[in-house]
């Protein structure tokens, strides 16, 4: 199965901000310092089901 490649869409994403991705994961619909602000902006732009994530720093590995 082909993985979902988010590298292009996240390449220039603002580190430390919350972003709202389109449900197809192919574009950033909105971004803001807080989850609620980014989500509200995405909904206002007509994105019905944005996916929310906060852009981690470039070395955010997890154990």
């Amino acid at each position, binding site marked *: *199965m082909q993985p979902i490649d988010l*590298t292009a869409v996240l390449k220039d994403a603002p580190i430390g901000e919350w972003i709202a991705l389109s449900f197809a994961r192919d574009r950033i619909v909105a971004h803001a310092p807080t989850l*609620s602000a980014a989500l509200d902006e995405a909904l206002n732009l007509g994105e019905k*089901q944005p996916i*929310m994530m906060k852009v*981690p720093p*470039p070395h*955010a*590995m997890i*154990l």
Partner: protein
Amino acid sequence: MKVPFSILPVGSDSAFPLRTELKRPIVALLLAKGDRQFVVFAVVDSGADLCVFPASVATRLGISLPNDRASTFSGSGETTQLAYFEPIQATILPMDAPNIEPDQEPIAFPLYAGFCETLEHFGMGLLGHESFFSRFTVSFNYTQSYFEILEPVILAPALS
């Protein structure tokens, strides 16, 4: 439900000088509490004992923190972290994409979710054993870039 791994950009360092990306088992998870709901990413993390999310998620769901259901946990360091737990509803949403099996059904389940400030920098939830692996059969196929989440089959008692 079969879900493809997701590839995320990541920086290189002295240990991994050629690294530019990593592959993680991530689901789109609809979280709901009362009439509030929205979708977040969550990593399916077989090394996590609990299911935890950034505190911002609780705020948007209308959950007041701190509450009276606190639990401590730790990562690789000695510092303990504090999460506040709340029963919510979760639904794993299938993705509509050409390389994914069509017509997969969403998987809904009750989730006892923890919320903590210390996960805020990570920006995604973690689906661990309590409430998630305890409920589903999960298998990973890293080389083929997918993982599978199956609801347990409940066998009816044999009729005699």
